[in-house]
């Protein structure tokens, strides 16, 4: 078997696709723009709904790829791609010329820039942080404090920041933030047993295996309070606590609350890499900006260009588990493509 594949993006989707294709006997080159593989998961502390360490997942994937004959090109970005007679010629910023019979796009996502929702005060008030900032705190701080060094007594989460929001141009649901918020609320209460935690949501989308149980656990064991209402704006008080306004829609009354820490559950947007690869290869995109599959039911890993496949969050927001499954299904599609070529 002499077929070769270039995988673009060394996050967990890219690593898993590479591992599977290499296992099947194909020659695989994995291209990653940063200095190491693992992607966004390198910055995350623990995963929902199991509370497994993200590092454990990354290490297991990287341990395997290092045992396989996969070529990993770090600090590399694609500057051009040409398709001729069914063969792809790729040039990188390191001036490497690479050829392949198929491409797999695994360029992932970017977190929504919460500064764009100015009314939530991120980057303006010290005690407003994002879910990603909180993961960094979990990873690095022994005693959790707010950015002004105080142990928080009351914390609120804002769901749907940059998701389901016409005002920032994102109509879609980012899918994973609800479960992330509930997971983080539980972790905070475990670290700070007397803390009060409130989650402000529009709808709680506990779609996955074990998610509803996580929600129930948050109520039953961790006294997390869920308030159905979207936070309209926040301001800072003289003692640097954050005052928020929402409607408690289930009681039908406006509500004010002061918190020591406000966590914004930032949504998911198409990765910067996805945009440049899409333009170079002239791939189709959906209204949401994510890459368009050839068929949403039968060919989700196949792009609009023959020989170009895709996996993971370049297609749509996905959990870690769904991303890994999706990567394996992409590898199977590539295998099938080569088999049919004879």
């Amino acid at each position, binding site marked *: 078997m002499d077929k070769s594949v270039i995988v673009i993006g060394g996050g967990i989707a890219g690593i898993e696709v590479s591992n599977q294709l290499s296992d099947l006997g194909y020659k695989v080159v994995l291209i990653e723009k940063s200095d190491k593989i693992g992607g966004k998961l390198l910055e995350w502390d623990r995963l929902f709904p199991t509370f497994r360490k993200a590092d454990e997942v990354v290490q297991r994937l990287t341990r395997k790829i290092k045992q396989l004959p996969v070529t990993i090109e770090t600090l590399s970005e694609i500057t051009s791609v040409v398709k001729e007679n069914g063969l792809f010629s790729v040039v990188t910023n390191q001036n490497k010329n690479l050829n392949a019979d198929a491409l797999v796009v695994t360029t992932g996502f970017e977190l929504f820039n919460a500064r764009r929702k100015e*009314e939530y005060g991120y980057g303006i008030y010290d005690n407003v942080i994002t879910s990603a900032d909180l993961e960094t705190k979990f990873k690095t701080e022994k005693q959790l404090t707010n950015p002004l060094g105080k142990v928080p007594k009351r914390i609120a989460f804002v769901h*749907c920041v940059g998701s*389901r*929001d*016409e*005002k920032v141009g994102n109509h879609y649901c980012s899918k994973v933030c609800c479960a992330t918020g509930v997971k983080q609320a539980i972790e905070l209460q475990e670290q700070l047993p007397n803390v009060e935690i409130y989650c402000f949501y*529009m*709808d709680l989308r506990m779609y996955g295996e074990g998610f509803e149980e996580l929600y129930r656990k948050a109520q039953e064991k961790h006294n997390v309070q869920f308030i*159905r*209402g*979207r*936070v*309209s*704006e926040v301001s800072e008080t003289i003692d640097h606590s954050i005052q928020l*306004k*929402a*409607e*408690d*829609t289930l009681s*039908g*009354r*406006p*509500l004010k609350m002061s918190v020591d820490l406000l966590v914004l559950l930032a949504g998911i947007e198409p990765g910067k890499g996805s945009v440049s690869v899409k333009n170079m290869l002239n791939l189709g995109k959906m209204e949401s900006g994510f890459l368009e599959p050839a068929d949403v039911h039968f060919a989700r890993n196949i792009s609009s260009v023959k020989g170009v496949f895709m996996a993971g969050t370049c297609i749509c927001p996905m959990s870690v588990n769904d991303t890994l499954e999706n990567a394996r299904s992409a590898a199977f599609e590539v295998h099938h493509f080569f088999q049919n070529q004879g």
Partner: protein
Amino acid sequence: MKDFGFTSIESRAIDYSQFDDRLLAHLVKEEPSFGLCLSCGGCTATCSAANLVDFNIRRLGLLIRRGEIENLSREIDKCMLCGKCSLVCPRGINLRHVVMLIKKSIVTLKEEPQLKEL
């Protein structure tokens, strides 16, 4: 009918068979975004009037979508027309325009027969 001395109490249930949809149809036609509400309450949270008086623009919109438009004119007069509700709405509903349309409709609908007390 013979008077047995009982008072009959009107049902509290929303009666869809009695749904008077004239106002709703008019509002959705003139301002289609009105149909997109997901009841997040952002409008009520930011509402200038709601901080001072008992006024809930989200609930009012919901009641109109259920055909419950009794006492509407008294309620809608509490709106200060500041437009902050339109600024925060995640579905981009032009709620200020909806309020203006309701105010105009009340004048014309009041002249039509068989309508609940607006």
